[in-house]
């Protein structure tokens, strides 16, 4: 199979690059575009550290062949961070001491951002469901749940 020319919008900027068949969105972001907020925790869709948005939906970018989303709008944690200061959700993660090693944090925030965009007033159950594909080994999740709930209206 030949390589594909990929044209996607990433964090508002139009990107064009060549990808070998089967290149994952995660690999394109990290290795081609140098956007490293999304992490590779497992590579097989079981940890959620690579969570990004494709057309507003939270996806595990390690499972998405980038040639299948040509023309899409992709958002990563780099794109949700304001030029100055922090987003309300980021600030809430700080205030609630919801990070320890930080490796799951980008994926957690992206999963939560997708939830809040669709449901600004989530219940605890909504929050738990939204992050149920995201593994955290440090915190025990409670501070993360609290941080997300605190941003809900």
């Amino acid at each position, binding site marked *: 199979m030949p390589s594909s020319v990929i044209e996607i919008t990433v964090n508002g900027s139009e990107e064009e690059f060549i990808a070998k068949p089967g290149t994952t969105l995660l690999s394109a972001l*990290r*290795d081609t575009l*140098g956007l*490293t*907020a*999304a*992490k*590779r*925790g*497992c*590579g*097989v869709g*079981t*940890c959620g*550290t690579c969570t990004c948005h494709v057309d507003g939906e939270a996806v595990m970018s390690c499972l998405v062949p980038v040639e299948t989303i040509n023309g899409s709008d992709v958002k*990563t*944690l*780099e794109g949700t*961070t304001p030029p100055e200061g*922090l987003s309300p959700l*980021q*600030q809430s*993660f*700080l205030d609630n*001491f919801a*990070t*320890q*090693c*930080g*490796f*799951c*944090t*980008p994926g957690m*925030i992206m999963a939560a951002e997708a939830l809040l965009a669709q449901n600004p007033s989530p219940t605890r159950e909504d929050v738990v469901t939204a992050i149920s594909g995201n*593994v*955290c*080994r*440090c915190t025990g999740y409670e501070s993360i749940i609290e941080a997300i709930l605190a941003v809900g209206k």
Partner: protein
Amino acid sequence: MSAPTTEAGGFDVVGKPVQRLDAMGHVTGRTQYFEDYNPAGMLHLKMHRSERHHANLVEVDTSEAEKVKGVVKVLTYKDVPKNWYTILTLINVGYPEEVVLAEKKVLWMGEPIVAVVATSERAALEGAAAVKVTYEDLEPIFDVEEAIKPDAFPLKPHGTNYFEYEGHHCRRVRLGDVEQGFAEADHIFEFKYQSRPIEQAPTETTGCIVEPQHNGRLKIYSDTQACFFTLDNTALILDVPFGKLQVVGGTVGGGFGGKVDVTVEPISCIAAMQTGKPVKYVYDRYEEMQISSPRAAERIYIKDGVMNDGRIIARQCTLYADAGAYSRHSPYAATKAAAHMPGPYTIPNVHIDSWCVYTNRTPSSAMRGFGVTIGDFALETQMDRIARELDMDPLALRLINAYRDGDMKAHHKVAEGTALIEVIQKAADLVGHELPGELRALSSREGR
């Protein structure tokens, strides 16, 4: 959570819940972990691993691997200057007994045999899969008590399936006369406990990137938990001056003990030296789960002599830590376990045998609570059973046996700064568990 209860304070910064220095980086995704560095021209290393638990290597054929498009280097044990090592050699514990790459024999399923270096991760994986190994199977040993039987087949050249501590089969702790204690006791309680291997499972897997520098040195970007441990062991394996290496790290996506071994850096350095290019070797999730060393499975026997009033007057513990095929940090943990027993209790007669045993499984090593976690499971389950058998309040049993300042511990160290009594009293308060006045009045500061 309420503010801590404290004896003294008056600090400006200490004792305050100031914001974490690293949190801003974490929530913006700007924190840089080792794998976020992506030097140009980087090569990828993947391993061909043993498919057998215990076998002689009859033939290792790398010819097909070398033909895979993108493969630039295939490394075997012949490429490793000092292939035999042991990680605690720096502090004079143990002797070289593990190999970087297998030579004539494999001792566990997953043991590295051939390293394949390629221009892409995919090519490296294909190359590793193309290595052909012919095995002659040997009988594996999976049970710790089978492994230490006198007629058991010795797994390694030094001849015993256990780590030898100054001429003893195990780390010993002896206080008083445990047999006399059992003879005097009103009750004897003897039980067995068992755990299985547990993975540290950090969200970031073990790995490194090694980059040759302009001055001939190698810069190792690593998620090691111990930078100098990694540097020193790697230099010894490479047989190069220590100054040739620089380790950069310090920001790690969880460790829990899983990143104290030195398993990825040495072979990556060899690959970087032979190719002159940056080399990345990072475990995939399967390798983190099944190849990186877990928390050891432990088997623990506890025999207690107890009086009618609940005083434990003798405790004998025999611990078998399943180290798997190689020592890693396990000999140290068996000593730590021996010192931890018989738990936070003052018992006049104690007999501890703590074994570090080799079997044909993934080498185990450090994990959060190393040498202690499983022991605490056994000890505190044992305490509950004794309380039930004697029809005693489980907290009362603990309080009357709790160690206090000035007590002699089993490893002949005088206890100080003890507070077992106080945490039990506080926990009782939290759950409304009533304690009689004399137990409520106990203090760790007052000798018995």
